[in-house]
C-alpha cells in the first residue's frame, strides 16, 4: 500500500525548521534554567503557603527550575530515546534493559544499573550502580550521592556537591581565542561566537572566540555552590563530530579527536591519582602515566597498530583506532583535530612522538556499563565466552553458576553488555577475549 505522504506547507517548515542550539558555546538564555521572579522582595514565593501568587514561578536553589543544579540540566538533557543532547535515559531503564544513549561521555543511567552473579555456587560477585560513573546529585531524576566514596578519589571534592556544574561551567565563560589560548571572560573582551566542540564549529577570529570544549570549566573555576576547590588546570582541547550521540557497531566507530590536556583537567579534582611525569618501568609506587607528557612509546604504538583482538596481531596502524581505547593526539590545534574528524569513523592510529595516553584512554567522563567507569570490563578473566563452534559470545547470565557464560555476562543481559560496549557484538572480539588493556600492552 502506498504510504501516506504528509502535506506540509513550506511556510511551516521555514517558520520553525531550525533546531535549537541552546548553549552555542557560552552562556545560554537565562530563563532556560532560572526563573527570574521566583522571589519577591527577597522572599521566596511559596505556592503551598501562598497559592494565589505566581504558582508557575516557584524556584529551586539559585533560582533554578529544578530541585538542584544537575536536575536543572537534565530537564533538557534526558529522555527516553537516543538524541543528540541526551546524557540520561529517562525514564530509567528497567532491569535487563540498557540505557539508550551513546555519547562519548556515557549515559548516566548506568549509575542505576546494579548486578550480581554467581561465580561459584552460593558465591556472588557484585557490580553496584554507583561504581559506574560520576555520581552527580540529581534528585528529581533519582540520581543520588555516592554512598561509598565521600570525596573525589585522589582529592577532597565532596560527594554531596558533585553536580554537572562541578565540571561544566553552566555559564560557559571559558573560550578559545585565535591563538589557541583558553581564557575566561574576565581576561578578554572577545565574545563567544559559537560552540568550539565540533568539526563543524566556527573558527576563532581576531575579534571573536569559540566556546571551550563542552563548556567545560577552566582554570580558576569554582561553582557558586561549592567554593574552596578552584580548578588549577584549564580546559582540555578536543573536537567531536557534530552528530556525537551515535551507537557504534563492529565496524563503524564514533571518534572524538582528543587533543590535549584531558588528564591534567581531570586532576583538578583527582590530583592524587594522576601522574604526568616520566614513568620508570619497574619502579615501585608509581601510577599508570596519563597526560600531555605521557607519550606512547614506540613499542606501544606498534602494539596499538597491530592489535585486533586476543591472538590476532594482524592489524595496521592506519586503521587501528578503537574507541574502547582512545588516545590523545598530542596537539591543541583545533584545525588538526577538525581535520581528523573530517572523515567519519576515522580509524587512523597514533603518531609516534605525538600521541599520549590520557584518563579517557580507559574511562568515560559520565558513566559506563562497567565498574570504575571503564570503557571495557576488567572484573572478569574474559570479555567473551565461546559457543560450541568456537565463535565468541557475550555470555549468558542465566547459565549455571560458575560457568564462563555467567562470568562473562556479569549479570548483564546481552542487550546491556552490547550497549555497554557501544553497540559492539561479540564478533568484535576473539573467543575468550582478554581485557582491552592489551590493545597497548599485548599480553594476551
Amino acid at each position: 500500500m502506498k504510504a501516506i505522504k504528509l502535506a506540509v506547507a513550506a511556510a511551516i517548515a521555514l517558520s520553525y525548521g531550525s533546531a535549537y542550539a541552546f548553549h552555542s558555546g557560552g552562556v545560554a538564555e537565562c530563563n532556560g534554567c532560572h526563573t527570574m521572579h521566583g522571589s519577591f522582595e527577597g522572599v521566596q514565593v511559596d505556592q503551598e503557603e501562598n497559592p494565589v501568587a505566581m504558582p508557575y514561578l516557584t524556584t529551586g536553589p539559585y533560582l533554578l527550575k529544578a530541585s538542584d543544579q544537575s536536575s536543572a540540566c537534565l530537564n533538557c538533557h534526558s529522555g527516553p530515546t537516543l538524541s543528540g543532547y541526551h546524557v540520561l535515559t529517562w525514564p530509567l531503564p528497567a532491569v535487563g534493559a540498557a540505557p539508550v544513549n551513546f555519547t562519548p561521555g556515557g549515559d548516566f543511567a548506568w549509575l542505576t544499573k546494579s548486578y550480581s552473579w554467581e561465580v561459584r555456587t552460593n558465591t556472588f560477585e557484585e557490580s553496584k550502580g554507583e561504581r559506574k560513573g560520576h555520581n552527580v546529585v540529581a534528585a528529581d531524576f533519582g540520581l543520588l550521592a555516592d554512598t561509598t566514596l565521600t570525596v573525589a578519589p585522589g582529592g577532597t571534592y565532596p560527594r554531596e556537591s558533585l553536580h554537572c556544574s562541578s565540571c561544566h561551567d553552566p555559564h560557559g565563560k571559558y573560550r578559545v581565542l585565535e591563538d589557541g589560548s583558553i581564557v575566561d571572560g574576565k581576561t578578554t573582551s572577545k565574545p563567544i561566537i559559537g560552540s568550539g566542540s565540533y568539526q563543524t564549529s566556527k573558527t576563532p577570529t581576531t575579534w571573536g572566540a569559540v566556546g571551550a570544549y563542552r563548556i567545560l570549566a577552566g582554570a580558576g573555576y569554582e561553582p557558586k555552590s561549592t567554593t574552596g576547590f578552584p580548578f588549577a588546570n584549564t580546559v582540555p582541547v578536543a573536537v567531536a563530530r557534530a552528530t556525537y550521540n551515535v551507537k557504534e557497531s563492529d565496524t563503524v566507530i564514533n571518534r572524538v579527536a582528543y587533543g590535549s590536556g584531558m588528564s591534567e583537567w581531570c586532576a583538578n579534582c583527582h590530583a592524587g591519582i594522576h601522574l604526568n611525569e616520566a614513568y620508570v618501568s619497574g619502579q615501585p609506587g608509581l601510577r599508570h602515566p596519563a597526560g600531555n607528557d605521557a607519550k606512547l612509546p614506540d613499542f606501544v604504538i606498534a602494539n596499538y597498530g597491530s592489535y585486533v583482538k586476543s591472538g590476532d596481531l594482524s592489524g595496521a596502524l592506519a586503521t587501528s583506532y578503537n574507541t574502547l581505547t582512545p588516545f590523545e593526539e598530542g596537539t591543541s590545534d583545533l584545525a588538526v583535530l577538525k581535520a581528523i574528524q573530517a572523515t567519519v569513523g576515522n580509524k587512523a592510529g597514533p603518531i609516534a612522538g605525538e600521541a599520549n595516553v590520557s584518563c579517557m584512554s580507559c574511562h568515560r567522563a559520565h558513566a559506563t556499563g562497567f565498574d570504575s567507569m571503564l570503557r571495557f570490563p576488567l572484573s572478569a578473566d574474559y570479555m567473551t565466552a565461546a559457543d560450541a563452534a568456537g565463535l565468541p559470545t557475550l555470555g549468558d547470565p542465566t547459565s549455571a553458576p560458575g560457568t564462563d557464560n555467567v562470568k562473562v555476562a556479569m549479570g548483564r543481559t546481552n542487550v546491556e553488555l552490547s550497549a555497554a560496549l557501544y553497540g559492539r557484538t561479540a564478533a568484535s572480539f576473539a573467543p575468550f577475549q582478554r581485557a582491552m588493556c592489551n590493545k597497548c600492552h599485548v599480553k594476551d
Partner: protein
Amino acid sequence: MSVGFRQIAVAAIAVAWATAAFGAPVAGAAPRKPTRFLHSLTSMTGPLTTSGASVAFDPRSKELLVVAEGLVHVFNPSGVLVHRFGQDDDLRRIRAVTALDAASGDYAVLADGESGPELVRCDYRGTRLGAIALENVPAEVGPFAPDSVAFVGGRLYLGDESHRRVVVIDVTGRYERWFDLERAIGTGTEKGYVEPSVRGLQVDPRGNILFVVPPLFRAFVVAPDGSVRSFGTKGDTPGRFNVVVAITSDDLGRIYVVDVLRCAISVWDPELRFVEQFGFRGFGPGGLVTPGSIVAGDGKVFVSQGRDRGVSVFQPGEG
C-alpha cells in the same frame, strides 16, 4: 490593619497572572472553573512511588495502565492498584501497553523480544496469547523500532520516536500505512548537530497523532488525512513552552501539553487556542516534579512524575 505596598503588588501580580492564565473575565459570563488536583494513584500500602512511568488509559473499563520498571500496573477508576503483570517469562520488560477491543478484553504490549522490541497480544491477566508480527512493511519506511503502541479505530499505531515514524497495522500485524513525522516537522538544523527529537507520541481517539519536539518548542497534531497543525512559542509565561515533553487530548478534543521545565500543563482547545495552565513546581498536593507522561480519560487527566512521586490525577476545568 494597613495594607502595605508589598501586599498590593502581590495582588496586582496575581491578578495579572490570573488574567494571563485564564483569560480576561467576560461580563455576565459564569467564571471558568479551573482544573483541580484530585489525588495521587495508590496501592493498598500507600501512594504509588514510580518515577518516570508512562501512562495509558483503558476506555473499556475506565482503568489506568501505568508502565514502570517493565511492568504494567492496573488502577481502577478510583485510582487504586488492582492488578500487575509482566513479572514472568511470558512478557519481558514491557515498554508500552494499549487496550484492544472491548469484546476480547485483551491488551497489546510492546516488550523485549529475543532481538528487539516485540508486539504481543495478551489477556487481561498478562498471559501471552501470541506475537503480532509486522507483515508487508514497505522498504521506504526505513529503520523502525517501535517504542509506543495505541489501539484506535480497530488499528494499531506503532510509534518510533527515535526514527520519527508511525506505522499503522491491523490487529493481525498486516501493514496499512505509515506516517513520516520528520516531514511533518519540517526538518533542517541551523547548526547541524541538533536533530528534531520527538517526545510524547500519542494517538487520540479520533486518529490524530500528537507529539512534541522540545528543541523547537512546538507541539504537533497530524490528522488521519496527513494534514499537519502545530503550535507553541518559546517562553516562560502561561501559553508558552519551555521544555515540552508530552502531550495528550481528551474526549472533548482539548489538548494538554506537559512542560517539564516549568512543571506545568497547558490546556488548548480543539482550535489550538490556549485555555489555561495548571500545575506548579512543588511537593504539596497539586504540585509537580519532573512531570512526564500524560493521558486523559473518564473526565480526568493523569500526569506521571519523577522523584518517586507516582501519578497525579486532575479534574479538567470547565467553562
